[in-house]
C-alpha cells in the first residue's frame, strides 16, 4: 500500500489524538482573536437592550446538561444583561432531566452578583410535562400551569408573580435550547400569541433557525459557542465562550487540514491508479 493509500486509511485514533492536542493547547497558549458580531446576534442583543428597564422577560433553559458547554454561556450572558438592566426574569424549563436544576443554580449564582432577590427580581417556575400544553397554558394563566415554583413555594407568595399572570405581562421570551422546543416556541407562542421570541441554540440547530429569523418569526439568534461569545462581547465580559473560541478555532482549522490532506491523498492515489 503506497503512502497516499495509507494516508487515506489512517487509523482514526491518530485523528482523535490530534484533535485532543488542538483542544488542549489553547488552555496553555492563550491567543484570543477578536470576536466579530453577526447581524443576528446583534438583533437579539438590541431587542433586549431596547426594552425598558424593569421589564419582565422570560428565559427558558430548554437544554440538556450535555449541551451545557454551548448553551450555558448564553444563559449566563443573557442573565447578566437582564439583571444589569434591572429586568425581572421568569425562568422555566421544558427539559425534565436537569433543566430546572440548571436554571436554579445558574440564576441564583448570577443574581448574587447583582444583588437580586428571589421572588422579587426573579422566579424559577421549574418544569411541567408536555411542553405543548405548557406553552398554550401560559397564555391564559401561569399559575394554572405552575401553581408553585421549583422549590414548591406557591406563586401567590411571590411578589413578582403578582404582576406576571400570563404572556401579556411578559415583554420578551429568550429561549436557550438544544432541541426542537424552539420550533414550538415560535409556532405556538410567537405565531398564535404574538410574543417576540429570540433564541440561543447549539451550532447544529442554528442553520435551521435562520429561516425563522429571516421570516421575522424570531427576533435574533445566537448559534453555538460563537454566538455565546458574541453576546458576551456585546455585554462586555470575558466569559467561558470567548475563552473557548481558541480551542474551537484550532479544531476547525485542524478539520480543514484533514479535509485538504484527505483530498490530496484521494487525487494522488487516483492518479497513480490511472483512473
Amino acid at each position, binding site marked *: 500500500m503506497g503512502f497516499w493509500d495509507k494516508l487515506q486509511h489512517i487509523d*482514526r485514533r491518530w485523528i482523535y489524538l490530534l484533535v485532543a492536542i488542538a483542544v488542549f493547547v489553547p488552555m496553555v497558549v492563550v491567543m484570543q482573536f477578536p470576536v466579530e458580531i453577526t447581524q443576528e446576534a446583534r438583533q437579539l442583543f438590541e431587542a433586549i437592550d431596547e426594552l425598558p428597564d424593569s421589564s419582565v422577560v422570560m428565559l427558558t433553559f430548554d437544554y*440538556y446538561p*450535555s*449541551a451545557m458547554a454551548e448553551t450555558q454561556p448564553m444563559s449566563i450572558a443573557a442573565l447578566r444583561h437582564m439583571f444589569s438592566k434591572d429586568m425581572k426574569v421568569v425562568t422555566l424549563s421544558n427539559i425534565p*432531566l436537569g433543566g430546572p436544576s440548571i436554571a436554579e443554580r445558574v440564576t441564583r449564582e448570577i443574581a448574587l452578583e447583582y444583588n437580586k432577590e428571589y421572588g422579587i427580581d426573579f422566579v424559577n417556575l421549574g418544569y411541567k410535562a408536555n411542553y405543548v400544553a405548557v406553552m398554550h397554558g401560559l397564555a*391564559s394563566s401561569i399559575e394554572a400551569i405552575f401553581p408553585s415554583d421549583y422549590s414548591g413555594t406557591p406563586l401567590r407568595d411571590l411578589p413578582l408573580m403578582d*404582576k406576571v*399572570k400570563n404572556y401579556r*405581562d411578559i415583554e420578551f421570551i429568550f429561549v436557550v435550547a*438544544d*432541541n*426542537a422546543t424552539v420550533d414550538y416556541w415560535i409556532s405556538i407562542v410567537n*405565531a*398564535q400569541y*404574538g410574543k417576540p421570541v429570540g433564541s440561543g441554540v*447549539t451550532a*447544529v*440547530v442554528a*442553520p*435551521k433557525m435562520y429561516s425563522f429569523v429571516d421570516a421575522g418569526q424570531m427576533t435574533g439568534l445566537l448559534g453555538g459557542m460563537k454566538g455565546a461569545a458574541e453576546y458576551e462581547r456585546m455585554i462586555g465580559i470575558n466569559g467561558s465562550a470567548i475563552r473557548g473560541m481558541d480551542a474551537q478555532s484550532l479544531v476547525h482549522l485542524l478539520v480543514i487540514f484533514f479535509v485538504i490532506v484527505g483530498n490530496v491523498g484521494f487525487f494522488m492515489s487516483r492518479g497513480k491508479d490511472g483512473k
Partner: protein
Amino acid sequence: MKNNNPHISVKTIILALSLCLCFSIFSFAQSPDSVNIHPPILTLVGDSTLDIDEGRTLVVAVSAIDLDGTVPVLTAEHLMDSVIFVDSLNGQGSLVFSPGFEQEGDYTVRIIASDGVLADTVTVAIAVNDITVFRTYRLSVLVFMLIFSGAVLLYTRWARQGKKLFVRRIPGIDAVEEAVGRATEMGKPVLFIPGISDIDDIETIAGLAILGRVARITAQYETPLYVPVRYPMILAAGQEVVEQAYLEVGRHDTYDRDTVRYVAGEQFAFTATVNGMMMRDKPAANIYMGAFFAESLLLAETGNAAGSIQIAGTARPEQLPFFIAACDYTLMGEELYAASSYLSHEPLLLGGLKGQDFVKVIIVAVIILGVILMSFDAGEWLKNLFVVP
C-alpha cells in the same frame, strides 16, 4: 377725673376674643392650601391601550402618590357593563373587566386620583375582540387541509381502481433489501433503530412502519434482528410490529420477544449501549429510520468503525449532514415517510405519495406567484392568507 380702674373692660375681652376667632378661622382657611400644594401623581401599571377577548378577564392596576403626604382617593368614570373598580384605600386601585360575549368593541375608561382639591387622571383604552364559536381566522388552514386531504384520497382511490402511478426510485430504500441480504450471507445480525423520539412523533411512526417491512425480510431470511428502543411505548409497539411480521411470513417459531428491547431512557445512555452492541456484535447492516438528535453522528461513526453498511432516514434537517457524511445511503425528509409505502409496493400507499406530491406542486406554484407579486408590492393579500393567529 382719671379712670384708675385696673380691671379690663368686658368690651375689650369680647373684642379680643372676636379677633382670636377671626384669626383662627383665617388660619384654618389657609391650612388646606398650605397642606395641598401638590397634586396626586397617578401611574398606570402597564400599557394604556389594551385588548382582550370576550369571555376573558382583564385587570388594570393603578398606583397614586401625593407628595403632600395624603392618600389619594381613586375613582373611575365611563364604566361599562362587567367592570368593577376597586380602591384599596392605600393609593393602589384595580379595574377588573370581564366582557361577555356580546361586548365586542372599543371602550375608554378614565381613572381619577384626587386629594380633595387637586386631581390627576389616566385614560385607558380597551378593545374587546369578538370571539365566535368557529375561529374564522383559521379558515385558510381548513381550506388547505381540504385540498390536501382531497388530493391524497383522490390518488388513493385511483390507485385502488388500478391506475398505474409512477414513483421515482429512491436508492436508499432499494438498498434496504440488499443490506438485509448481505447480513444473511455474512451470518451477522441487522440492527434497526426506529429513532429516539417517542410514539407521539410522526417520524417514529414512520420508523415503526419501515421496521415492519424490514422484519418481514429478516423473518424470511432468518436473519437475527436487533431493535433497541428508548421509550416504553415504542417497546410495546415495536414488539407488536415485529411479532406480526414474523407471523405473516409463517416464522413465528423463530420470533424472539427480546428482539425489541428497551435499552435506556436517556439519550446518551441509549447511544452508549447501542455503540457497545455495534462493537461487540458487529452487525452487517445498520438501519436508522426516525427522529435522531445529537447522537446521530456517534451512532453512524461507530457503525462505520464496526464495518456495517448503513442506511439512515430522518426528517430533521440538522442531522442530515452527519448521516450523509457517515452513512452509505440517506433518506432525506419526506423520503423517510415515503419509504414505508415504497417498501410495501402497495398501490394504496403509493397513491398517498402521489397526492402529497400534487400538493407540493401547488405550494411551489403559490410560492412563485407570491415572489412575483411581492416584487411588485402587490402580494400582501396572498401573504395574509398564510398568517394564522
